[in-house]
């Protein structure tokens, strides 16, 4: 599904990502972990087209994806959420999710000016679909609530609903459990499991080790922009380099 080969990104003098290579197989849950500043979000931004690689290549679904724009990648079936919550606070919850489905609706400005009957019907269907997604992620009760009125935990799930609305093949979640308490983290864990079970490949960046160990089929560890280790949860847990760099006593 996703192949990264010798990927590097330099900002001025800072080598944020150095020569990272890994493969994500379709239908798996893949986690990227590492200390703060290890380059995890930079890696995400490179994969999702927000940054252009300095060198190396990215292949999404066997086709080149390095340096593509985010909206083109979305068209190819990639979707993501953000570490610092990028929800449209000027819209209602359901509208946010409907935005996620944008690619599957008629999007011409001109068509929008005239209320064509086909458009209205497609819109109503989109709304129903969005409502179902909101139920799926567990925020169904906020359907018509304005985004600015929702709690942080609910917004995090809303963002996931928006990402799912695009019916992606690959979903990248950037710290989905950040800022959540124990119960909420458990709920997110269950949600991610549900998403993976529905056939979507999931890649996540996370700091919560329990979540990562429970969910992941495969883990990639980054440190100072380089790949430190790669393997299953059991392999990573016992890897002395990883323990030294990162896990310490919280394994």
């Amino acid at each position, binding site marked *: 599904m996703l192949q990264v080969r010798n990927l590097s990104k330099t900002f001025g003098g800072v080598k944020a990502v150095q020569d990272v290579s890994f493969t994500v197989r379709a239908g798996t849950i893949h986690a990227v972990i590492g200390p703060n500043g290890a380059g995890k979000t930079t890696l995400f931004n490179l994969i*999702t087209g*927000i940054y252009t690689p300095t060198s190396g290549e990215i292949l999404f679904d066997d086709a080149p994806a390095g340096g593509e*724009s*985010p*909206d083109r*990648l*979305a*068209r190819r079936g*990639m*979707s*993501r959420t*953000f570490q610092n919550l*990028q*929800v*449209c*606070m*000027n*819209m209602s919850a359901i*509208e*946010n999710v*409907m*935005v*996620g489905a*944008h*690619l599957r*609706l*008629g*999007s*011409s*400005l001109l*068509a*929008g*000016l*005239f*209320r064509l009957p086909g*458009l209205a019907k497609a*819109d109503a269907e*989109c709304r129903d679909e969005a409502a179902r997604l909101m139920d799926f992620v567990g925020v169904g009760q906020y359907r018509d609530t304005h*985004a600015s009125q929702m709690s942080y935990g609910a917004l995090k799930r809303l*963002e996931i609903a*928006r*990402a799912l*609305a*695009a019916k992606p093949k690959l979903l990248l979640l950037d710290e989905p459990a950040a800022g959540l308490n124990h119960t909420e983290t458990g709920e997110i864990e269950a949600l991610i499991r549900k998403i993976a079970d529905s056939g979507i490949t999931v890649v996540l960046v996370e700091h919560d080790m329990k979540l990562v160990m429970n969910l992941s089929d495969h883990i990639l560890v980054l440190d100072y922009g380089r790949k430190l280790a790669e393997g299953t949860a059991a392999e990573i847990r016992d890897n002395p380099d990883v323990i030294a760099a990162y896990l310490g006593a919280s394994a």
Partner: protein
Amino acid sequence: MTMKPTTRGFLFLAFVLAVLPLALPNAYYYDLAIRIAINASIAVGLNLLIGYTGQISLGHAGFFGIGAYASAILTSRYGWPSGVALIAGAAATALLAFAVARPILKLKGHYLAMATLGLGIILSMLIVNETDFTGGPDGMPVDAFSLFGWQITGEQTWYAVVAVMLLLVTRAALNLIDAPAGRALQAIHGSEIAARVAGIDTTSFKVRVFVLSAVVASVMGSVTAHYVGFLTPGAAGFFHSIELVTMVVLGGMASVFGSILGAVVLTLLPQLLSAFEGWETVVFGLILMLTMIFLPRGIVPTLRLKFAGRAA
């Protein structure tokens, strides 16, 4: 079947526009109503850009000026039919807007404000300086609008024309907001990066809405030129651009009816201010500051929140 609030608002607007002539005693009031309707159309178009998509334009009067002077020059100096001249003006505006939109809309915040400001001022200076075409600072007269031999003259006819135009523009804007394209625009305002990863080509959308609002301004410029019969460069000036932005921001960003209300207030304001002889500029400046400080969202959204609070 319950009606959506926006449908109710639209029908109310249509009702008011239809019934208003009964309350207008003489030509002076008709003139005010016509100017309000023209400003309202421009404001609704501009709000799509500023309020919904979250961009800024401090040079929109420039587009108004292009339409106005295109109509004026082509009809009065070259004898073109009015309808063709209007379309030519709109086309020229669309081309210019399209050409500058991409580089300008890459900018954000204050830089975008300055770029649009610069554009507006350049257009305004062109109009002032090309005296041979435009009559320069003294202005130029404009022939009446004629369509297939029938001339539009007289306040009542003009009122009907601009009222219909306002209804069309409002209806189109309301349609757009409910459409996927409208949501895309608002998403660009809410979080451009989120919109992009959702598959929205944000640059393309920003360009399209910029061109759309520019064309609306241009058409209204042409209308104003024919209606007033005389045109001066102030139509494209910085002050006019600020007036237009204020209508949008004062009435309510991301609120179609807010823009209409803003147009009403801003058009009537000079009439009210004439009571403060000599102090007009000061009072206008104070009003701008006070409303932006205390009603940053604009009148309609602030009222809406108040009523929503009570209903909850």
